[in-house]
């Protein structure tokens, strides 16, 4: 491990090169670079999740902590680790003070693994506009988490307005096990659906996304119902004949009920943050199903014809009446 205080971007690049040589990782394969935008308080949690995901997808991990954009002096502190506490791959933790925090890309760009895809993950409230954050503009895939916003449903609507192919949200990854069970229930062949109800915690973006997904696929009315569970509690689809229901039952199981068939207990794992992130890294192409679900959940028009690229929109949180939460997390 190399720790650099009050340093420059080029010194970090050099330190990374030196660490690689001492660890004999000169020609090791890297599938991608994962950039994590995180506040100082969540660094440890983000490190754990990213390490777990990196164990499945060897990557160069770059954690960017933006500290006090209003600090009078710009400063960069860095840690370079290879094969250390941040898993088998390479990791760089960057702490940026002062105005440098608004120009984080100047340090990050030379550290990206050559010609490998870049994924940026905001571990905190999602940006109101991804174009505000240069670290989002340079990424091939952008992972937000609406459930961390002050108003998750408003954040979800912002994601739909701002959507470009390559955006995804961890709420969508949280919905995957539920969607898998729902799809499995329909595998046996059913009569056409009439309506559906998704029950879960009020304001849970995953609930809205599942409802959107069902609306888009089944072309029926989907209602939401509140429950006092922490996440989702059930999905029920009324059919022309009978009904199909998936209900959470205790820890890591769900019961699949179909009229005319015996109830089945199925696995429904509670997944850790790292597993959700790993799922996001598994495919790096645009997720069309997410786009359809997001459009249906927020009542936006067709999102699939949005163009891919973004250009940076200058945004200074220190003199803005409404600072973008992603740039002020620290």
């Amino acid at each position, binding site marked *: 491990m190399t720790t650099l205080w009050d340093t420059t971007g080029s010194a970090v690049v050099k330190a990374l090169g030196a660490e690689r040589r001492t660890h004999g990782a000169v020609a*090791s394969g890297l599938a991608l670079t994962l950039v994590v935008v995180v506040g100082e308080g969540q660094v440890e949690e983000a490190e754990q999740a990213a390490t777990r995901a990196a164990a499945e997808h060897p990557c160069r991990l770059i954690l960017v902590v933006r500290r006090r954009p209003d600090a009078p002096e710009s400063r960069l502190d860095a840690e370079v680790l290879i094969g250390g506490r941040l898993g088998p791959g390479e990791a760089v933790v960057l702490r940026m003070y002062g105005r440098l925090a608004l120009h984080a890309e100047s340090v990050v760009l030379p550290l990206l693994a050559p010609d490998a895809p870049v994924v940026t993950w905001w571990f905190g409230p999602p940006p109101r506009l991804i174009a505000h954050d240069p670290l989002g503009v340079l990424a091939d895939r952008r992972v937000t988490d609406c459930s961390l916003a002050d108003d998750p449903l408003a954040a979800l609507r912002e994601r739909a307005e701002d959507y470009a192919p390559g955006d995804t949200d961890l709420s969508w990854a949280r919905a995957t096990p539920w969607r898998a069970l729902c*799809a*499995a229930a329909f595998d046996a062949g059913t009569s056409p659906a009439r309506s559906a109800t998704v029950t879960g915690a009020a304001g849970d973006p995953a609930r809205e996304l599942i409802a959107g997904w069902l609306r888009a696929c*089944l072309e029926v009315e989907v209602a939401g119902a509140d429950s006092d569970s922490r996440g989702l509690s059930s999905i029920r689809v009324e059919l022309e004949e009978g009904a199909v229901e998936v209900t959470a039952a205790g820890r890591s199981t769900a019961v699949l009920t179909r009229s005319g068939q015996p109830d089945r207990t199925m*696995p429904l794992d509670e997944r850790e943050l790292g597993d959700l992130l790993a799922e996001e890294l598994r495919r790096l192409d645009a997720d069309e*199903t997410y786009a359809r679900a997001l459009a249906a959940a927020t009542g936006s028009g067709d999102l699939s014809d949005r163009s891919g690229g973004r250009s940076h929109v200058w945004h200074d949180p220190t003199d803005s009446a409404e600072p973008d939460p992603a740039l002020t997390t620290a």
Partner: protein
Amino acid sequence: MTNPLRSPGDRRLPRVPEPCALVVFGATGDLARKKLIPAVYDLANRGLLPAGFVLLGFARRDWGHGDFEQVARTAAQKGARTEFRESTWQRLSDSIKFLPGSFDDDAAFDTLAATLADLDATHGTMGNAAFYLSIPPAAFPVVLKQMQRTGMADNSECRAWRRVVVEKPFGHDLASSRELNDLVDDVFTAQDVFRIDHYLGKETVQNLMALRFANTLFEPIWNSHHVDSVQITMAEDVGIGTRAAFYEETGAARDVLQNHLLQLLALTAMEEPVGFDAESLRTEKRKVLGALKPPVDLAAHAVRGQYDQGWLAGERVQAYRAEEGVAADSRTETYAAVRLEIETRRWAGVPFYLRTGKRLPRRVTEIAVVFRKAPHLPFAKTDTEELGANQLVVRVQPDEGVTLRFGSKVPGTVMEVRDVAMDFQYGEAFTEASPEAYERLLLDVLLGDASLFPRNEEVEQSWRVIDPIEQFWAEEGEPELYRAGEWGPKGADTMLAREGRCWRRP
């Protein structure tokens, strides 16, 4: 009817088979305990089994469901790749059933047929079933005839799909494999027969197709203009263990060469399939196996060996003939190497060297494509003395990956060119833990995807190549002895040396 909730673009949702039962004949055997049951558990743990699923064991034991569940539980705990979780097992254990019976017992098969029908009502299997024949080949005819008699193999009669999985050996020569194929195809429809060659379930073998057909870099040089020779090796460091009875009858050529090595050869040498569906893939493999020419000069191009006593990995090991259950004058080969040619425009004149053996220094399977040397080197002769031929090596196991070997200048003031290796390690670029071969193949059977299973014509074509070699060996003397712990008999080295080549040390 298609499922409205599934779409090809939605790649987060796992591929889950339709509701079905998996019936394992010989459920108390080694294969079932070491591979099949752990694979079923792993699939369940990864959420890849359908809602209506039953694992039904069938064997000649006086057992109840509970006894089998206990055995299965121990097997899963020992053999599973993923973490053993009590909750997963609890769910799975409701779906584990056992039926006692011997293969000639009509009543037991009637019960089995009735049980399969009942399982739809109790477990929602929709009548679908896959039968896994984890039994000695000698028992195949009896079991298949029983299935035919009870009608449980008939898709239309059951109004559901019925599939069968057959393990190698698929016969012991061309005639016997034809007989077996006729029998199986008579009972099941040809598309419902899955012949398992577990090598094809390995991630790296499938990657061979990605390497060849998804890149522009390799296909243009994948022919006799650029390729000097191809070496395919499957080495094992273990002996025959407790399989003496089986091995004495079989030998290395029938056990490994006929199936695994020829399948690897087919995937290496085949033309580009028009699509990646089962039909196109098997057609291309069938074509290249059909173009294989058995060696004309068998004495020079087929070498067999048998391990003698020696030292391996720091331990003393006994000779093959001293193993328990092996005849003191056994002529069974534990090592086989052959030189084959493919009579196509792409491969004419390129020798394919295949070798397999037991008690070799280490366990390794790899495909090495050796390229021709540069026709002219503008360097002084001394500069390139240590430069060998370029090689592309696909490591099937262990350390799954690809190595490219090429010449590079040694740093310094003189021009000296030496071989270097560029390495791609599977585990470095993607560590999404590769599923076990059986896990993958079992899932494919339940999904009905036959791409990774050889078709009967492929099996027959393989025997066509192996039969003359076996006949020649049967008439001619004894296998050459090699010391346990060395890379095979001298004869194998001579076979390549005669043509100015040498085996790669894997």
